[in-house]
């Protein structure tokens, strides 16, 4: 007989335990007057509370969104004339490089896995905090300092990085791009890269080790599942980027010749390293928003997630396949195995399609309530559909050969990222009340939705056409084809409308400040975070319900309306078994 060993979780005789009623022991029962911790800015600097850290991430990421957006508006004004002179050729190269870099590395990534995930995942699984709270705080400080490092390129001689957000070798070497701006870009990414890796470790450990009793893996919310797969992708992909950046730095400063032909190196190796990270990265960005939208659609249709296991299978498939498609960004190099990457890239559309049909299935025969969060989620569906379909063209090398490096690709990925922004806004409207205790104004929210949604389409559609007409990307001037001005101007109108929607969001936050208390569960939410108060207490729960499905709060509030099991067709049969509460 083998000894039964303790589980690998470190259990300490410490003061953080669950009581018999499920929830926190009365360590904090004597009220907040006992807390003599730091206050003010020292409190912020020393916090390890995932909710505060996640909120810091959210605010910083939204500031990055505004900075990146400002760069975009300047680009649009430059492109308002075929031979614009708003900025010089050199400044333009800095602008699109930093626009892309800020948006992807400093806004989308941190928002996707550091902001809402940090706040919501522990609460969704019934945990008091993340598994490694101090590591969590470190992740935030690395993010903030990484952002400052990258952006300070603008203040050094030679300006900020200007080789595109992808920094292809040999353009990014010290001969072609001397100057500290490039090194600050590399340094900033080393910091944010480690920030991401540590968050990946933290989320995985939290999900594996800190779930509440009864919360089996297949009862976790879809958002948490998606964050798990996202975390695994982070762990698989980010080290590759970090390694590539170190190699690039060595080539620039230590005389190595990893990417230069003269020393026997291979420039295209940079692309292999970069895109092996780069493609999983776009799924790291997308999966969290897929998860948010899944939950929002379910709640505002008053139905369970349709095809829960299919969703998980689809997410795992996307994660797995995403590591095998990277060279579809390199089809025009002439040195990659076209058929392999083509079939893998086409296949990855299948699980995405499964998700789309499951979202529709969730709404089907539901009772749909068009709150701002739901509208944003629907906007996500439409916009991602367009972005996803145009991506299928790019998976075919012959079709990629003439659209690569044109505005068709720019339009494709902007459709996708605008969808993610819509999803992110959905998440903020949905979970904002849980985090702050206050609702946002719904009327301003609807104005924000329509301007964001319509603005996104008006912005991207002309760019598809421009790409097909031959307009290349990363050009400051199109003097050769002045007839492209009209479509550029229409796109700019869309970009301005998107800017307006961002302003409306800020206005909403200001106008609604502490105005509309939300209560614990304003949306009749299904998952565990809606069981606790808004905002949650320190260590998240005073008490926990019994967990018997992936919708513990719904089961508690609506006994007799559990999700139908195999062979059941109506709920009357369920009335006999009430859901007990501990």
């Amino acid at each position: 007989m083998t000894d039964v060993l303790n589980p690998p979780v470190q259990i300490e005789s410490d003061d953080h335990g669950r009581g018999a009623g499920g929830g926190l022991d009365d360590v904090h029962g004597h009220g907040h007057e006992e807390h003599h911790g730091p206050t003010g800015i020292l409190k912020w600097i020393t916090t390890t509370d995932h909710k505060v850290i996640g909120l810091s991430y959210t605010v910083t990421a939204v500031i990055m969104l505004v900075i990146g957006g400002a760069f975009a508006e300047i680009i649009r004004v430059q492109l308002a004339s075929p031979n614009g002179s708003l900025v010089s050729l050199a400044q333009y190269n800095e602008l699109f490089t930093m626009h892309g870099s800020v948006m992807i590395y400093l806004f989308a990534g941190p928002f996707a896995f550091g902001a809402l995930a940090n706040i919501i995942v522990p609460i969704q699984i019934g945990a008091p905090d993340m598994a490694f709270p101090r590591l969590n705080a470190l992740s935030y400080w690395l993010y903030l300092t990484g952002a400052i490092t990258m952006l300070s390129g603008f203040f050094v001689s030679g300006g900020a990085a200007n080789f595109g957000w992808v920094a292809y070798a040999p353009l990014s070497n010290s001969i072609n791009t001397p100057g500290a701006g490039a090194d600050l870009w590399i340094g900033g990414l080393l910091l944010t890269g480690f920030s991401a890796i540590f968050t990946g470790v933290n989320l995985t450990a939290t999900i594996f080790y800190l779930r509440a009793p009864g919360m089996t893996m297949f009862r976790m919310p879809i958002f948490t599942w998606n964050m798990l797969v996202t975390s695994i992708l982070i762990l698989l992909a980010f080290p590759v980027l970090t390694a590539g950046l170190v190699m690039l730095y060595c080539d620039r400063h230590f005389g190595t010749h990893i990417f230069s032909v003269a020393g026997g190196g291979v420039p295209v190796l940079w692309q292999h390293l970069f895109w092996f990270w780069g493609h999983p990265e776009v799924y790291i960005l997308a999966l969290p928003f897929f998860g948010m939208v899944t939950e929002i659609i379910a709640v505002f249709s008053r139905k369970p997630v349709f095809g829960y296991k299919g969703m998980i299978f689809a997410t795992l498939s996307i994660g797995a396949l995403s590591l095998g498609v990277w060279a579809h960004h390199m089809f025009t190099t002439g040195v990659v195995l076209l058929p392999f990457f083509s079939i893998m890239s086409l296949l990855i559309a299948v699980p995405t399609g499964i998700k789309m049909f499951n979202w529709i299935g969730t709404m089907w025969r539901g009772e749909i309530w068009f709150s701002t969060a739901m509208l944003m989620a629907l906007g996500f569906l439409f916009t991602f559909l367009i972005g996803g379909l145009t991506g299928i063209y790019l998976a075919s090398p012959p079709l990629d050969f003439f659209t690569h490096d044109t505005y068709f690709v720019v339009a494709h990925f902007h459709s996708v990222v605008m969808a993610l922004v819509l999803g992110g806004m959905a998440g903020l409207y949905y979970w904002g009340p849980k985090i702050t205790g206050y609702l946002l104004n719904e009327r301003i929210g609807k104005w924000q939705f329509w301007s964001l949604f319509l603005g996104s389409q008006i912005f991207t559609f002309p760019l598809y056409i421009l790409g097909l007409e031959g307009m290349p990307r990363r050009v400051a001037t199109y003097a050769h084809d002045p007839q492209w001005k009209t479509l550029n101007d229409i796109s700019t109108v869309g970009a301005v409308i998107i800017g307006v929607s961002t302003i409306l969001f800020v206005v909403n936050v200001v106008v609604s400040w502490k105005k509309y208390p939300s209560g614990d569960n304003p949306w009749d939410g299904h998952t565990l975070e809606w069981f606790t108060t808004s905002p949650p207490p320190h260590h998240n729960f005073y008490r926990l319900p019994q967990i018997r499905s992936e919708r513990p709060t719904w089961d508690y509030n609506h006994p007799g309306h559990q999700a139908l099991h195999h062979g059941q067709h109506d709920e009357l049969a369920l009335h006999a078994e009430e859901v007990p509460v501990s």
Partner: protein
Amino acid sequence: MKVEAKILLGLGLFFGIMCAVYWNWSLENAGGVMMFAAMLLCFLPGGYYYWWSRRMKARPEDDPNATQAGGAGVVGAFPGTSIWPFTLGMGAFFVVLALVFGIWFLVPGLTLVVWAMLGGTAEGRRGGQH
């Protein structure tokens, strides 16, 4: 712990198959090596969890019929406030600036990093006040 193990082992297996197909077909080494490493990175924790899952008693979160009362007890150690993440972060910041502006930045950088490591270790699992 079985589901967690199976997820990671399954992913590792998928990467292994993909690596075998890709590397043999393309003879391209960068992708082959990276996919092989991805496979190993999944097998390592996956194998560990699989080995543990067969030896541990069921945790409350793996038990579909668990009650909150049954799962009562200590969950883990959660440090309260701590200055060391910030210190380490600032140290890393200066170390990176050394890469850009000169080796003398390593003085504040490494000082803060080492100080944070010592302080964080001394702090132990409890951390500061709440």
